[in-house]
């Protein structure tokens, strides 16, 4: 089965187009490992910062009928311990790993890049788009094409690994931002990060459910937004796209591919369908291919690009 799902991505041949995205089950080497064992073709580390961060006080997640709000607050053990987990993962697995990093300025991104250069990571992902640390850090960098250009350009100059820019859905024109990232030399795009953010209220206690008040939306509710933005980015750039946002089923993954994604992230669905979700979706993709007469993933057509 897996042969038919083989996908080429930036010189790698991955066994499945499914990606464990940043922030999901990736605090430890064993979280990455079990995701890979369950069918993820690529895994991503938690977004690592220079210093360790404990994240926000709970509640950090709030579920509603159509998805999830989260305000984890970028908790991570810091770049050094985080890369140790990545390296330990690479001891046991040949699954490619994306190292996600977060910072708010060029210097910090460069320092993070230098750390990642010395790790066993396969790709470097710049999280320019966390919507949940607004109070701390302001509007995400990915909202400004100039910031995106500046940071990607600088990181590309020093990174030994291919660079992926993770973009925000909360922008007025994704086309501009995607083009800025490509022009600056990004090897691939990853979108979308969580949407909004949003808020939910406990009506008995008259309090926001999340202690941070606001949290980014993920899960089924954001799929149409993700598809639209991926399609717009795909229409504008020539570099490959890791598409994500609300993918729960094989059918969702096929929509992402048709919208222009080369790889597909599956995050919140790990909650809805278990850690086995990767294998389940892999099988559903195969089933779709059987039903529609496609032998290989690359035969699945994409929408005509927007003009």
């Amino acid at each position, binding site marked *: 089965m897996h042969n038919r799902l083989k996908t080429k991505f930036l010189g790698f041949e991955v066994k499945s187009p499914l990606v464990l995205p940043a922030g999901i*089950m990736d605090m430890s080497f064993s979280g990455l490992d079990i995701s890979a064992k369950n069918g993820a073709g690529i895994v991503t580390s938690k977004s690592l910062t220079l210093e360790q961060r404990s994240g926000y*006080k709970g509640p950090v997640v709030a579920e509603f009928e159509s998805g999830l709000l989260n305000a984890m607050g970028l908790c991570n053990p810091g770049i050094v311990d985080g890369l140790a987990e990545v390296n330990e993962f690479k001891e046991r697995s040949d699954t490619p790993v994306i190292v996600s990093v977060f910072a708010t300025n060029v210097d910090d991104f460069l320092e993070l890049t230098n750390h990642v250069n010395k790790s066993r990571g396969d790709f470097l992902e710049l999280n320019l788009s966390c919507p949940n640390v607004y109070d701390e850090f302001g509007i995400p960098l990915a909202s400004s094409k100039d910031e995106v250009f500046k940071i990607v350009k600088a990181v590309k100059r020093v990174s030994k690994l291919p660079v992926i820019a993770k973009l925000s859905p909360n922008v007025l024109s994704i086309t501009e931002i995607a083009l800025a990232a490509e022009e600056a030399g990004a090897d691939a795009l990853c979108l979308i990060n969580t949407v909004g953010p949003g808020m939910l209220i406990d009506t008995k206690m008259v309090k926001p459910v999340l202690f941070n008040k606001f949290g980014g939306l993920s899960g089924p509710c954001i799929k149409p937004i993700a598809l639209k933005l991926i399609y717009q980015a795909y229409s504008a750039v020539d570099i490959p796209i890791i598409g994500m946002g609300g993918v729960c089923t094989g059918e969702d993954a096929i929509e992402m591919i048709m919208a222009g994604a080369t790889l597909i992230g599956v995050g919140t669905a790990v909650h809805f369908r278990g850690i086995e979700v990767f294998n389940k979706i892999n099988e559903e993709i195969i089933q779709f291919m059987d039903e529609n007469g496609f032998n290989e993933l690359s035969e699945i057509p994409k929408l005509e690009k927007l003009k």
Partner: protein
Amino acid sequence: MDKRITLKISKIEDETKDIKTFTFNHKLNAKPGQFIMLTDFEGGEKPFSISDCSENEFSITVKKIGEFTSRLFQKGVGDYMSVRGAFGSSFFVSNGKVLLVGGGYGSPPLYFLAKKLLKAGANIAVVNGAQTKDDLVFCDRFSKLGIKYQNITEAGCLGRKGTSVDLAKGALTKEKFDFIYAAGPEMMMKALQGVIGEVDYEFLFERYMKCAIGICGNCTMDPLGIRLCVEGPVLPKKIIEQLTEFGKYRRDASGKRIRY
């Protein structure tokens, strides 16, 4: 969907000077070993094992140790608290001859288990330990069940001096058990594992929990990537034997490893 529900505290019982049992009127449908996430929306949402659960109410038994639990201790009957759950795996309910080994605030979930075991017809012995007499909980409740019950403190204030593992060791040399359950400090369970021999067992583990729905990865145990909030907190022998981090380290809120 894991539905959140906001409930009034219906009863508060003092167990020791820093352990209280909080009861809520709500049909939770929990199984022994499962936990809830509790918050007052003032900062912090924390996991607590269910220490009792009937058709219309459930309880948790909490030790005051930090910011959240201190605030919880100031709440009164009628105050709102918000609950998610019940989450996680539950204890296997045996009908054989079983030994329950509790330590500190780990014992209460074993009380909920004992009630279920009784119903299933098991032959139950409980050993319950704590540092001092003041830390020992649920003695009365266990006793009232009419099962074999022994307790012990490290300070020796109740006569016997030692840990619940010492009592377990004693019981295990005298009698043959079909199944052993334990909940309490990790090092207690580690020590217990050393004296269990061939008997099958399940332990209740604690790791730092944030989402409780299996996505943040904070509660995974190495090297299996077992999520304590989904595959745990109750783990079976065949999993526990593979856990290299058991008794060695855990992770804090940032994911950093903390050695025991």
